[in-house]
């Protein structure tokens, strides 16, 4: 079976580089092809990279609290760019302040994300979700 390709990056004006490197390693070890765009990645960059590499999922990381603003409209832009149905994941400190995560998750799902993960998620959790969504195993 062909390897699944993930486009990974930290969205917006966010320069937190450590988490994304750990995710990169974990996804590679789990057998995915990873296109790691690093930090300060715009929505357009995620989309261009996904088109050119024929990616199966876009993995958005955000740690500085502005994730909700940065992620708004990403699903619509993907649709517009011909990436209909591509998996969208988001994780990290994706909102400011204390909120019930189920509420946050709902907000991101309403924005068109397939999955949202709270701070401190083990990479293995995300990998399990990917395998489930790709119908691997």
């Amino acid at each position, binding site marked *: 079976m062909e390897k699944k*390709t993930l486009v990974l990056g930290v969205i917006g004006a*966010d*320069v937190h580089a450590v988490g994304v490197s750990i995710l990169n390693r974990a996804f590679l070890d789990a057998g995915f092809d990873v296109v790691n765009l690093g930090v300060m990645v715009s929505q357009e960059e995620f989309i*261009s990279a996904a088109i*050119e*590499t*024929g990616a199966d999922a876009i993995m958005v990381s955000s740690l500085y609290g502005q994730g909700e603003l940065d992620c708004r409209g990403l699903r619509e832009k993907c649709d517009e760019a011909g990436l209909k149905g591509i998996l969208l994941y988001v994780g990290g400190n994706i909102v400011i302040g204390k909120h019930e995560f189920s509420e946050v998750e709902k907000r991101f799902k309403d924005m068109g994300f397939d999955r949202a993960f709270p701070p401190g998620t083990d990479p293995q959790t995300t990998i399990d979700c990917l395998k489930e969504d790709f119908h691997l195993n």
Partner: protein
Amino acid sequence: MRPVLLIDFGSTYTKVTAVDLETEELLGTSQSWTTIQTDIGEGLADAVAKLEEKTGPLQFEARYACSSAAGGLRMITSGLVPELTAEAAKQASLGAGAKIRGVYSFELTEDDIEDIDAEHPDIFLLTGGTDGGNKECILHNADMLATCKTDFPVVIAGNRSVARTCAKKLEGREVHIVENVMPKFGALNIKPAQDKIREIFLKRIVEAKGYTKAQSLIDNIAMPTPSAMMQAMQLLAEGCENPDGSKETGIGDLLAVDVGGATTDIYSVCDGMPRAGMDTIFKGLPEPYIKRTVEGDIGMRYSIHGIEEAVGTGYISQLSGIPEDRCREMIDYLGRNTEVVPTDAESEALDFALASGAIKTAVTRHAGRLEEFYTMNGIAYMQTGKDLREIRQIIVTGGSLIHTKRTGKIASAAFWDPQDPFSLKPKQADIWVDRSYILAAMGLLSGYYPGTALRIMKKELKKDGYQE
């Protein structure tokens, strides 16, 4: 004496340069009209006769030529995403010395095919998708290209998974498969495509364009003229090794400006990536170490209005000291009478301002930019394109500039400008002027006698002594 003849078949002039390999001296230069319509050898013979009037008869031990005649190497490229594979394809073609007649991204349409047929390129470069990435776009484009009525060779340099399938779709045409211009996301791999383009140019284009008649007069048409320029610039920057193992030093990282009547070409030889330790993140495709850009709307005569549009009449008026109305009048006149050269103080002042505007615009487009970002951790910078700030050598060539008087001052339009601080242009530099117009010739010679070519360049590119 061991004279060698170097020939540049230009679109208008056939330029000849003679050097002596023994003394490593420039013997002379001369030019005549390019006679591509009848027999390209006629113009060449005439140019050589004029040369020999100055030097006396010469027994050339070799004759090498480069060419941009009959429209040069006209190419069209296609890729997928504009700033990714389409950009990589464009870089590959420019670096191979091509004149780019069209860059397409995403899927080709029937209208595009009509335009491509009308343009009838010498070579088409088909790219799209990283290896294992998107397949649909390049497959669609191969299908569309197969419907073209005109015939041209196609170089396929896209997603390797479907390269063969694309070739099958184009059966009946001359097709070449080479490595992907962007095998992995963000990795630029343009040399294999360039080598193939060069090979096709030598085999097919040279023959098709009627150079074969001159074949008996010359040993080799080695490359398109812009490639010769790039080789000269690389040699001048890097230096080379002498046969005895000693090193002939170059002058280091450089920027070269070639301002012509119709276009302005800029070359840079430097790494240009963010320096370690700075809070700068690089975005976009990695930049080629030897980068060439061509501004088709910036030139001293045919594209004179492009300069005016880019910098504004006010800029030209201020630099030349000529009132704006008079500037407009003179610019219109020169646009219609492209062969006019400056004869008095006023027209010289205008050309001075125009050349400055051309260089300012073309170098700004060539150079990278910084953007400032305020993050939780303080200010961060994002760089796109090449950082030229550390370049300390600027080479000036081009018929429109080598005869000007204040060339150093004109070249200073290439410098970093406090009014536009995020444009990454050289902060200061020595200016070298190609007074004898020999750079392309030395690029040709460098393929056979690099040490000699380098020493002649260093001797002939008289330092203008201008620094800022």
